[in-house]
């Protein structure tokens, strides 16, 4: 799109760094335990002692917010790479072997891609018995079509470059082509595009948490926090829902913006 160059990365990069600094650094300065209940101060409005208030069991919402943020960053990273590695291998395998295997692999990918991602993750989480990490696995599986299709088209594109065809015709081994031609080209595109998976993982996991399939109740996770606050949302205790929701919104918008700008600047070619 616009030729803003690397300067256009400044705002999203600052937002992402701010997110990481608050969430990771905040824990050092805010000593309260996200799981510690205190029945003397339940549902307290935001104050100096509890800047984000307390929940129905008197837990400090700020401490839970920070812990939820750390969990979101962790989950985003795990899904990003957890989907990237197998997805890229699948795409690479399909593109390099071609023929029947390519056809079969890509039809399986089509089948996976037919599910709305969050419902696919639900299916996996249900099949494997629920809980945070099965939900994470489900979300990671739902990114496979994105990664595999991207990798396949990247490999096919690189393979069709004249210098790669020339190297192949001069007897370069498949390993050589892979390391020296495919990996640098396809690798950078894959990394750039994987940035968009980060925000997707956070928001999807929060959605699963909301329907009870992600993190379970006492875990400080943003989606679960919103669910817990839902019954108080219309009775005046707004802080239980507003803060974790803003956390998700900020994290997802910041990382999506970074992903968009990165692919504009570095010219990744995502088709999803």
């Amino acid at each position, binding site marked *: *799109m616009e030729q803003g160059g690397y300067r256009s990365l400044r705002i999203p990069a600052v937002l992402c760094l701010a997110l990481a600094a608050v969430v990771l650094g905040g824990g050092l300065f805010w000593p309260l335990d996200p799981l510690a209940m205190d029945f003397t101060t339940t549902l307290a409005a935001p104050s100096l002692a509890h800047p984000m208030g307390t929940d129905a069991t008197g837990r400090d919402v700020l401490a839970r917010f920070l812990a939820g943020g750390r969990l979101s960053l962790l989950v985003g990273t795990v899904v990003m790479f957890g989907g990237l590695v197998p997805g890229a291998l699948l795409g690479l395998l399909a593109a390099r072997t071609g023929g029947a295997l390519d056809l079969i692999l890509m*039809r*399986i*990918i*089509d*089948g*996976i891609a*037919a*599910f*709305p*991602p*969050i*419902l*696919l993750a*639900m*299916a*996996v989480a*249900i*099949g*494997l*018995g629920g809980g945070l990490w099965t939900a994470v696995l489900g979300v990671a599986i739902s990114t496979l079509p994105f990664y595999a299709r991207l990798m396949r088209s990247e490999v096919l594109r690189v393979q069709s470059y004249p210098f790669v065809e020339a190297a192949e015709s001069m007897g370069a081994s498949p390993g050589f082509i892979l390391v020296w031609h495919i990996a640098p080209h396809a690798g950078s595109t894959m990394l750039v595009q994987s940035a968009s998976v980060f*925000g997707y993982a956070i*928001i999807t996991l*929060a*959605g699963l948490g*909301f*329907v*009870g*399939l992600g993190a379970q109740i006492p875990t400080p996770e943003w*989606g679960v926090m*919103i669910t817990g606050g*839902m019954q108080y*949302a*219309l009775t*005046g205790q*707004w802080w239980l*829902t*507003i803060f*974790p*929701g803003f956390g*998700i*919104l900020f994290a*997802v*918008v910041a990382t*999506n*913006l970074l992903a*968009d700008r990165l692919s504009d600047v570095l010219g990744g070619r995502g088709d999803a």
Partner: protein
Amino acid sequence: MPKLIASRLLTSILALLGAAAFAFIAIRVAPGDAARLTLGAFATDEAIASLRVEMGLDRPLPVQFWIYLQDFVTGDWGRSYSLGQPVSQLLASRFPATLELGLYAFAMAFSAALAMALWGAHRQTPFSERLPQRLALFALGVPQFWFGLVSLMIGFELLGLFPGPVGRLPPGMDAPGGPTGLFTIDALLVGEIGTFAAAFHHLILPAATLALLPFGFLYRLLRANLADMSDASFALVARAHGQSRLRVLLKTLLPNAIIPTLTASGLIFGQLLAGSVLVERVFNWPGAGALVTQGVLTQDYSVVQTFILLSAAVYIVTNLLVDIVAALIDPRLRSGGLQR
């Protein structure tokens, strides 16, 4: 043309098989016990044993898959133990509510995306480009269930402009008796204007919430398609004939940009179905999505499994239909000439 349709039909069937296989593997072959998943945690061992036989869980996997496919295709989707009804009946009775919500959400998403994409393309000012872009960024980044809650906190609790999370009609108001099950349409058909207004009023917040994701997606797609096209020589030539910028945008560029946008319908329907699972719970909307959430919470998974596989089928069938429609609209494909 027939050849094109035949080959698309074949890939669609393969994708359906793939989707069914995936759902089968995720739910049947995974370590959990499928019979227990269906009957819930409190079922007796006898009930589970008899269901295992009924579901064919004692047979080899390929046979199981075959039975699974047959049951799915014939609409034999089992029954919900907690509600005591066949899944097909449950889904059918809840479907109109979800359909009505989805239709309004789609209409909102599409008209907003279209208006903003056209506005940006026409005005080309920094403001007219950035405002819709930021709205789309927000729409794609905000958790829908949270937005729904916040819209209730503001629109209902704070301002009192909208009804609370009470479903499709105010408590005590009867559903309009009509043929479609879509309350706004039925109310108009039987001439109950008051019911129409109430039903419409109850639809606004949930439909707007559900519209967020498709709006962001459609806006970006339309904008990209329009941008691709506005450098096209045919726009320049039409301008050189003396046609106004707006006219060229609406009459020449838009029809060209709409066709590739149409191909995303399958994805949009998927987003609406998946979104309904989250949004209906927030608004106590008595649709199929709320049934799914309830199924998850009560560990009554028969409805959930069916809904998930149905959503994949909807996606695949929609894509097939869209491809055929696009081929009918696009003269290059229609006459069997150039392939894109």
